[in-house]
């Protein structure tokens, strides 16, 4: 479930830097440069990550009216991944080893020969595999300088922070206890929090 319907689970981030005073056109241009591009089926590319329109993972021609909503920028991060199933790869590799040994009248193959064969088989199979696709919505709030991102997976969040940084040149701080404290308290109080020790919540009676 994402931005527009259903229950929501999301991570909040705060911009660590001030928003550059760019015009919407420059902003849009930055997004378009990181728009999603499908994996090239003729290469051994395995992963592609980029922006698409919310509710339309095929929309990579991102226009102003698709993205901007009042003080918000609405986008989805799309991740396509191609992966050759391990058992299929193994079966094809074993057959390729046997064929190579037979053609070259060899009983044993060297490690480098095996690695080369495995690489070739993997590349050949990869071109036949359809990618899996996942999308994750995000909202950049330009007035509050905060981001909401619809995934709690650590790996997906890392990809998101990286894509966000590449697109806008801005760093994100997760709104965990530290990030929230930095928003809610003054700097001195945050420093004092860092010096606290965990409390013992249970004491024996009479102390």
């Amino acid at each position: 479930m994402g931005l527009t319907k259903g229950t929501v689970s999301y991570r909040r981030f705060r911009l660590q830097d001030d928003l550059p005073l760019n015009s919407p056109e420059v902003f849009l241009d930055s997004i378009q440069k990181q728009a999603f591009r499908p994996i090239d089926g003729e290469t051994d590319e395995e992963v592609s990550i980029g922006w698409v329109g919310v509710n339309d993972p095929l929309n990579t021609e991102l226009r102003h009216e698709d993205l901007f909503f009042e003080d918000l920028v609405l986008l989805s991060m799309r991740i396509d991944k191609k992966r050759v199933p391990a058992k299929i790869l193994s079966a094809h590799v074993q057959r390729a080893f046997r064929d190579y040994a037979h053609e070259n009248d060899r009983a044993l193959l060297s490690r480098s020969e095996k690695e080369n064969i495995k690489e070739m088989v993997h590349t050949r199979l990869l071109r036949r595999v359809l990618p899996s696709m996942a999308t994750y919505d995000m909202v950049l709030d330009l007035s509050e300088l905060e981001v909401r991102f619809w995934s709690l997976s650590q790996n997906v969040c890392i990809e998101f922070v990286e894509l966000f940084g590449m697109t806008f040149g801005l760093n994100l701080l997760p709104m965990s206890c530290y990030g929230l404290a930095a928003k809610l308290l003054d700097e001195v109080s945050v420093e004092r929090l860092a010096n606290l020790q965990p409390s013992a919540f249970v004491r024996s009676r009479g102390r």
Partner: protein
Amino acid sequence: MSLLARIRQLDFLASEFLTWLLYRCERQNAVWKLDASPAFELWPDDRLRLEAPVDGVTKNLLSGGTPSRTAEAHAALATGKLVQEARWKLLRGEKEWLFTMKAPDLDLRSVRLPELLTEEEDDRLRERLSLMRELEETVELLLKTFLELRLSNGWTRDELPAVSEWILDGTPSNG
């Protein structure tokens, strides 16, 4: 110190916050009146996970009914376990949110927003985001209250002994 180290340094406060929240909800009968904000109700719902902060291995997962009021929950707290995950119900006026918070990240999870009043797609999006913001502001207000209290002398002088009493009063041996 790196940013990641600074973030990790405060992680322990998340489970302290959730445990304190549970205590205050019980003590205040779920009614909260903070700052100039209108009063609201917050109480623990049907899921509670407690873990020892040190080993993190032994845990109690309680679900169904009101697990925070069970003897098991208090017994776990009495052994030093803290709340690592809890589902909450928030009432502000006619609006009701259900949501889960976990330590240490305090992300808002499985949030069920109040019923939407608008029909148009743009209006619904605006309303959903506004309801999410309302929940975030409430959680921030609660966390700010906790952190300020945690930094004050009143934490060790008054609050912590009161939490301890509440935990021990609810354990099976204390009826």
